[in-house]
Every structure is written in C-alpha cells, then in structure tokens.
C-alpha cells in the first residue's frame, strides 16, 4: 500500500524563519559558551599534547620487523607482504641462511628488507598476510625525513623499531 507522507503544515511563525534563526543562534552560542567555559574539550594542542598514551592496541602505525626471544629474525623472506602491499612499498631481497647457522632449517631470511614510508598507507595487510608473525604495525606515526632516502626504512631500521617480541608462535623450535 502506498504511503502518502503529508507535507508538514508550517505555522505562521515558522514561515517567518525568525524563530528558526533565533534557535540556530542559540545553538551556536551554546556551543561557544560550552567551549569557552572549558566544559568540553575536543582539540589537542598537537606538539605539546600527544595521543601517544591513549593509542588503542590495534593502532596501525609504522610497520616494523620483530625478532623473537631466541634472537632469531622471524622473517623468512616468503615475500607475501611484498606481493600484497597495495602501494608496493615493500621490497625484499632474500638470501639463503648458511648451513652452519643455528637456524639453517628455516632456509631463507631477508638480505635486505625495505619499506618506503612515503608509499606506505598503513593498511596493515603485510601484518595480516604474514605467516610467520614477523611484521607488525607499531604505534609510531610521526615518520619524517629530509630526503626521500631517509624515508626508506631498511632492515636495520625496521628491526630497531620492531625490537623483540615475545610470546609468538615458535614453529621452528621443535625438531623435525
């Protein structure tokens, strides 16, 4: 059944717009007074005040590589993150782990791992796709540099940001 919505009948006062204008002025004045009396605060004075302590756990900042409690770099150079990265910010040059190494059964590790932070869009797909729990998005957000080269995070820098992360699944420790 068709429903016919009646147009609202405006009273004479409403047709004059004047009460509506007054109502609007009252609302804006109310907001102004509320902010002037410091009842409400919505803005942060950025460089002095920061969000850092209030960042949520799931915050997506700069991506970084982590080592585990055994000091092993977790990345195995599978390059899944490189392939999924939407802006193609990640470049990995894999290398083979020499047989005398303690973790030689892992077979591969990155020789170089570069994330171009000019390209990175902080989407977190690299973290999602990583089968080794090696890359994580950290809470660093103020990434800046004077040159384009400075904005490319190399492997050393990535491990520096990522640090050691404990309590991850250690699938390479058991004997096979």
């Amino acid at each position: 059944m068709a429903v016919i919505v009646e147009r609202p009948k405006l009273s004479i006062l409403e047709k004059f717009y004047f009460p509506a204008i007054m109502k609007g002025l009252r609302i804006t004045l109310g907001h102004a007074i509320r902010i002037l009396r410091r009842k409400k605060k919505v803005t942060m004075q950025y460089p002095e005040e920061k969000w850092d302590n209030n960042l949520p756990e799931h915050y997506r900042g700069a991506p970084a590589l982590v080592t585990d409690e055994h000091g092993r770099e977790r990345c195995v150079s599978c390059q899944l993150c490189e392939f999924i990265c939407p802006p193609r910010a990640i470049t990995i040059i894999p290398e083979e782990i020499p047989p005398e190494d303690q973790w030689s059964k892992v077979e591969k590790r990155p020789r170089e791992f570069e994330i171009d932070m000019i390209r990175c869009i902080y989407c977190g797909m690299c973290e999602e796709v990583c089968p080794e729990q090696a890359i994580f998005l950290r809470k660093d957000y103020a990434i800046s540099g004077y040159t384009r080269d400075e904005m490319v995070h190399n492997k050393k820098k990535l491990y520096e940001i990522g640090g050691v992360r404990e309590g991850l699944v250690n699938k390479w420790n058991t004997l096979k």
Partner: protein
Amino acid sequence: MPILISFIKIVMVIFVVILPMVAYSVWAERRVSAVIQERVGPNRVGIPFTKIRLFGLGQPIADGIKFLLKEDFTPGHVNKFYYWLAPALTMVPALLTCAVLPFGSELFGEKMVIADLNVGPLFIFAIASLSVYGIVLAGWASNSKYSFLGGVRSSSQMISYEISLGLSLVPVLLIFGELNLSEIVWEQSKNGWLLLPFWGDGAIWNGGVDRFFLLFPAFIAFIVFTTSIFAETNRLPFDLPECETELVAGYHTEYSSMKFALFFLGEYAAMIIGSGLIVTLFLGGWSLPFGLDAYLMNMTGDPEQIPWWLGLIHIGTFLAKVIVFILFFIWVRWTLPRFRYDQLMRLGWIIFFELALVNIFITAGILILTRGSAS
C-alpha cells in the same frame, strides 16, 4: 589648519582604527568560528622569536606579511587594466564611507567626524554602490566562468538589496527629520536611541508617545536594514557571489597575493562600516544609554562643553558597539546556511522591498497622528 586637522582625523580613523580593526576582525572571525565549532583557532602566533603567544594576536600581522610576500600572479587571459582596477574599487569605497560616520562627540572642541556632511546617508549610499563595480569588474576582467558567475550574482544581489537598504532608512530619516549623521546621534543622545527611547523627551512618561509607537516601524527598519547590510557586504547567509562549493571562490578566483587580500579586507571594511552605520542610526552611535551623557555633562558644570575624557568615553562607546555588531555578524555567519539564489531574490524583491515600502507609510501615519501636521 582645518585641512591639517582633517588630515590627522583621516589618518587616525583609517590607519589607526579601521585597518587594524579589519585585520583583527579576520582574526576574530577565525577565533569565533573556531569556538562555535568547538575548535581552538589560530592561537600560536605571538611575538616572534619568543614563546609568548598572546592568544594568537600576531596572526593578522603574519597573514599580512604573507600576503605581501606571495607571488602576485596575473593570469595571461585577463583584461589587465580592469583586473588591476577591481581590487582597489572594492577597498576604496568601503573606506570612503567612513568619512561621514561620527565616531565620537567632540575632542578638544573638534567634532569627531571626518566630514560633517548634511547628506550623510545619501553619501554613504552613493559611495557604497560603487563597490559593486569592483566585484563586477573583477568578475568580467578575470575572464573565467567562475569569476563571471560570481560577478553576475553579486551585481544582481547588491542592486536588489540596495533598494530595500535605501527604503528601510527612509522611516529613520522621517523620525529624526535630519540627514546629518552627527545631528542624528546628538538627538539620540538627548532623547533616547531609536530602538531604546527611554530617557529625555523620547521616554513615554516624558511625553514621547510618538517615539514609543514608532518603536515598531523602527524595529522593522532595523531588521530590513541589518539584513540588507549582510547582503551588501556579501556575508554568509548571502555570500552567493563567492560560494566556494559552486564557484570555487567567485569573483576573486583568479586573484592572488595582495590583490586577493584587498578583496578580503574590503569585505571586512564594508562590514565594519556597515556595523558603524547600524549603530549610528539605530543604537545611538557614540552616545551612552539612559541619559548618562547629559548627566556627565551637567556634572562638569558646563552642559555645552564636552570634557576630553567624555570625548574619549564616547569614542570608546562607539568602538565597543561596533565590535559587538561585528561579533554579531560573525555569529550569524557561522549559524546560518547559505540561501538558494531564488530564495535570495524572493526575500529581497518580494518581502523586504514591500516591507520597507509599507514601513514608510506606517511611520508617516504614526508621525501624523502623534506629532500632527506641524512637524
């Protein structure tokens, strides 16, 4: 000697009062809009090279320096002569109109008005109408569709609202029987403001029955006049000439650097002069309310002579009233959304024009009934 005094007054009014007020009304606009939207607004620029911030009071100066240092780009497709003429034509009329505004009573026996003309409101209308040329020329000379549309809108809007602006003033002039703005303010100082006639001969208990009944047409005139000033200065409920959602920036799309700043400042200067005019005509100009003027003058002994401190108080009163009105302008700007163009034209031609016209007859009728045919 009178030339020298006029010169001093011009310099004082334009460069010491109006231009800083223009700069700081831009700052006020940004701070007030921020507060209304629960933001902070520019609060950082203070004294350079120190940590002193002063609520961002240095912002207008920094903006001015920025405008001067920016590249003054003239696009290749414009008509150079008119392109250069247009910004000056918006700024100059806005500043010229302040010549007849009485911004104070007397200071050291000198009338605080640059030109004490007997045709004050007429002079203001004559000059203020010129500012539409600046906008139209900017629109045409820029040779761009956005500028052109902005200029066309602006010209039709300003011409439409000039009619109701002029007509809404006629009742005021009928009531005072005077076209000299200084005399109008003196009259209000002695016998009550037009919208507040509660002392002197204007009070109803002192026989000012006419002024009491004239409150109604005076209020209508006030509403129509204030709204038309909004439209004339292209302020927000009527800022169709530059509405950025449709026309990028309207008539000043192609302008940059100081030429753009002149448009910008011209708008604010027009706003300040408009506020000054409203205050002068409806709210007693520089006069203090409730007969305080007469009281203070009697206190000093000589009721004809205005002491220097009272003169300063009067100037301060005028500035305070104007500042309140500027804040009102800003407040309205950040409250009301923009009109549609047909609504704008309807309001101007069908409502305000008729209202102002009828208002003249109402005023004349009340004047005949209360003051008789003698006046």
